[in-house]
């Protein structure tokens, strides 16, 4: 069998699918939770970037993973809070605020990178840490699955966990109920004394946490350094993934996985010599198709003219 096909049907392919999907799963959950509460958060790009950076810097200077984890998450949450403060309290347009914050994140990270690492590109001059990978030991003997899961970074596992956590939060906690209520009908929520602004803020904070984990994975697992604009649009892809999944846990997860697969496929196909642009465009075309088909399905159920 030709080595290309062989490699695509290998466990190493599926292994890389998970690895590629992880930095999309996290922000996708972030987008989903804020969408449920009724705010479109396109600032995940910035959130991830800032967390990825903070994680690397803190780990480089403290050589302590826990501290970098905490710092990275706090940084992401901070951006989410700023977004929340401007969009909810000061009524700034949330899309615009997010655009501004993405710009801000991209600038400030490189600026500080230069201050800390005297480099405007990557932090490779710093001795930063990475999160450990999980050795399954005996379990790794399990056919296929073992091969796919063994040696994955711990954050890959946490990504799966997060999907479940997301599910629990949304459907089994009072906060989740409030978030859904606020998203569906803010007036109804406030009429029973719920503080709509606060709930939306909580939702944004959660999306900050998810986004931060995605960022930390990028710079402390996926690769071992921070690079300028290293999120490379994953924050936007996440929006697609979550909307394919209708902001529901499983859907969002599968949506992200779809990207994982298509990206991994594109990477594996890269060496065969068709123009690279053609290969690189695949994921985006697939998204448009999936999204359209997905929506078309749900439109059928709608009465004409219903939204």
């Amino acid at each position: 069998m030709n080595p290309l096909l062989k490699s695509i049907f290998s466990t190493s392919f599926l292994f890389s699918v998970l690895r590629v999907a992880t930095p999309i799963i996290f922000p996708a959950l972030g987008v989903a939770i804020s969408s449920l509460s009724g705010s479109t958060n396109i600032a995940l790009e910035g959130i991830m970037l800032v967390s990825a950076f903070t994680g690397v810097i803190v780990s480089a200077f403290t050589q302590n993973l826990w501290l970098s984890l905490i710092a990275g998450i706090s940084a992401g949450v901070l951006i989410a809070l700023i977004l929340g403060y401007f969009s909810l309290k000061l009524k700034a347009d949330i899309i615009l605020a997010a655009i501004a914050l993405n710009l801000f994140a991209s600038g400030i990270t490189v600026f500080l990178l230069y201050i800390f690492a005297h480099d405007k590109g990557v932090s490779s001059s710093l001795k930063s840490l990475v999160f450990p990978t999980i050795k399954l030991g005996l379990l790794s003997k399990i056919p296929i699955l073992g091969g796919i899961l063994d040696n994955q970074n711990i954050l890959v596992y946490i990504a799966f966990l997060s999907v479940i956590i997301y599910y629990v939060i949304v459907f089994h906690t009072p906060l989740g109920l409030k978030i859904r209520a606020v998203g569906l009908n803010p007036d109804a929520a406030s009429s029973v004394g719920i503080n709509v602004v606060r709930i939306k803020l909580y939702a944004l904070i959660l999306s900050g946490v998810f986004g931060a984990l995605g960022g930390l994975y990028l710079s402390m697992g996926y690769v071992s350094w921070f690079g300028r604009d290293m999120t490379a649009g994953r924050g936007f892809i996440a929006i697609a993934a979550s909307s394919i999944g209708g902001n529901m846990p499983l859907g969002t997860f599968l949506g992200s996985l779809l990207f994982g697969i298509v990206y991994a496929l594109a990477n594996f196909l890269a060496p065969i010599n068709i123009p690279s642009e053609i290969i690189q465009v695949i994921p985006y075309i697939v998204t448009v198709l999936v999204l359209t088909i997905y929506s078309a399905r749900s439109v059928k159920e709608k009465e004409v003219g219903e939204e």
Partner: protein
Amino acid sequence: MEKFILKYFNLIRTIIAILIGFIISVSLIFLVSKDSIAALGYLFLGPFGSISRIGNIVELATPIIFCGIAIAIPFQAQQFNVGAEGTFFISAAFGTAFALIIQGLNLPGFIYILVVLTFAGLMGAFWGFIPGYLKAKYRANMVVLTLMLNYIAYFISIYLINYHFRDKAAGYLTSYRLPETLFLKQFIPNTRIHIGFLIAIASVFIAYYFLYHTTLGYEIRMVGFNFHFAKYSGINVFKVIVLSSLIGGIFAGIGGMAEVMGIHRRFLWQSLPGYGWDGVVVAIIGHNNPILIMFAAFFLAYLRIGGQVLNLLSDVPYELISVIEAIIILLITAEAFLENVKYRITVREAEKEAFKNESSS
């Protein structure tokens, strides 16, 4: 006095917001710069430093105006189409390709220019039609659709130029140079302000007139205000949603090609230039009103050029400039900022009124 404040409240608020933004920027600069005073000068006065710098403002504002309009028209119909970025890019690419293909015909300059710009406009219309149609027919989420289409436009364009119209002599990914006859004249000495700018200004008024004085513009706005009402009134919502995206696309398309014909004279972008996002910014700041959008575009351009001068002449690092820009944008759009002040004044005024005619009646 209070009446005056109420009347011009939004303006006043914006000005105050900008001032605060400036103050923050100033303190940032004081933190990082050895010669802060000079730096401030560069940032705020630099853009007016010379005719060529003022020129730079106008040059930069031109594509932003085009994209701002392109964004505003679908926004008016509540279609969150952020596709101007990709439309601008792909129209420029295909426009360039088209121009090079028909080069052989040796059309007279004016006709040639007209034909090429028209083609770019059509290309933009086509690229705007796609999300419009998918949204109207399948109700796919506009934001995501257009985000994805931006990437698609990018790769298709790069492919087109790289594989079919790349200047072999050039070491880089860039198209052949356009024939002289196609250059949009740069008509102010020591600047690169070109005919495209005049087209942009014309577009502003055309778009304004279109939105507020034509039946289609009316339909677009009504669909935006209340989709159900539009349907109930007999407006063809489907048509409106498709057309709003399509027409927006035309402006982005012409804008893209004008930039190539006016400034670069060849297609040389290797990454999305970001004018589409600037378009979103100015459209929102300008409340989707073409006239206001024009001013917003000039302001944004002024900020950028200030940053550019700062970067050239001072020790302030390049990245800090985007930080400053972000801060100022954030503050400008803080709608509710100072809202309570306004409310307090309103109340006082209204009560006066109310209980005045109490006593009278």
